[in-house]
């Protein structure tokens, strides 16, 4: 600060000259040394005070978050215990309203969760860290503790979301047919089917099931071998 005094006077003088300001005003604009010192001290104090307040606020927020997480963990633990002891009490499909109103008790957990299939995973997942306590517990509301089987790492191969090639189209094993599309015999079968469609639907045997299994004693019906009844009855 000491070195700034002469520089300050010089710069003020220069400014006055360049802008042709009223000389009488200049003295009043020069900042006295003591005032400057005072300003510096006040500034330091204000800054320290502000930083302290900010830190305190952040610590408070962190404490709130930790508290919310703790409560969520406890609720899940209680739910698991009750769910395992009394699976009949675990009623699925409770709505959000119940979760919000009974958050602090174990009541909500009892109503909200079924028996967990893989309890170790569910127990270690306290839920998203958030100060809100209602809607963020939506993962419990459905009453189904879904078994988590792990994040599916594909090591760069991609999956259905990234549009990778589906496994049923990747021919890794030995396939005798290299051609794409139906084989020649399938093509012939298809031609036969087309011909069939052109025949009248009321023709005899149109509904014949070629693939049905028949017993050894089956015989085709060819009408009235032993000639009982009228001729028209042989249809």
């Amino acid at each position, binding site marked *: 600060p000491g070195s700034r005094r002469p520089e300050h006077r010089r710069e003020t003088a220069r400014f006055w000259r360049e802008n042709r300001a009223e000389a009488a005003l200049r003295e009043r604009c020069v900042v006295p040394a003591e005032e400057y010192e005072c300003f510096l001290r006040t500034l330091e104090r204000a800054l320290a005070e502000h930083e302290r307040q900010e830190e305190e606020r952040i610590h408070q927020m962190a404490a709130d978050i930790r508290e919310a997480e703790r409560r969520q963990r406890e609720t899940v633990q209680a739910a698991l215990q009750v769910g395992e002891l009394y699976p009949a009490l675990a009623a699925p*499909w409770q709505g959000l309203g119940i979760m919000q109103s009974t958050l602090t008790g174990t009541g909500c957990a009892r109503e909200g969760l079924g028996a967990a299939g893989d309890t170790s995973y569910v127990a270690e*997942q306290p839920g998203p860290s958030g100060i809100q306590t209602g809607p963020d517990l*939506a993962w419990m509301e*459905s009453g189904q503790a879904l078994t988590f089987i792990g*994040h599916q790492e*594909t090591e760069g191969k991609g999956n259905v*979301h990234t549009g990778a090639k589906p*496994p049923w189209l990747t021919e890794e094993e030995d396939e005798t047919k290299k051609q794409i599309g139906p084989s020649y015999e399938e093509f012939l079968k298809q031609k036969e089917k087309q011909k069939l469609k052109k025949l009248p639907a009321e023709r005899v045997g149109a509904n014949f099931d070629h693939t049905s299994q028949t017993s050894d004693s089956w015989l085709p019906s060819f009408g009235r071998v032993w000639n009982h009844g009228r001729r028209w009855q042989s249809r």
Partner: protein
Amino acid sequence: MSLLLPKLTSKKEVDQAIKSVAEKVLVLRFGRDSDAVCLQLDDILAKTAHDLSKMAVIYLVDVNKVPVYTQYFDISYIPSTVFFFNGQHMKVDYGSPDHTKFVGSFKTKQDFIDLIEVIYRGAMRGKLIVRSPIDPNNIPKYDLLYQGI
């Protein structure tokens, strides 16, 4: 009357089902037979399979036996159910973030029946993605955030 649902135990069998089931919705339930929610879902599938037999074919797939598919469909929660029609993967908008599969169980048999009907009709009209008819309140909620942990 509930029938025992058929199971697919290898990638090859799953491939075969996808490529050969024709003109019907193919339903693949990925999960584990002993898991609690899978049991709930499998019960619904078994009880409706007969009534839906003209529109759908249902198989159970053990996630441990087909790691390629578990990875490809990014199955982190079980049960997860995937739908196909004539070899094409059918997507459904349930109002949840993932349209590629149904996660969890259905609330009622009717919900599952309604869903199959919508998928079947959509597929017949050439749609590759359909809107789920199930009330969003009955769709299980799960947290995709867990994937990063």
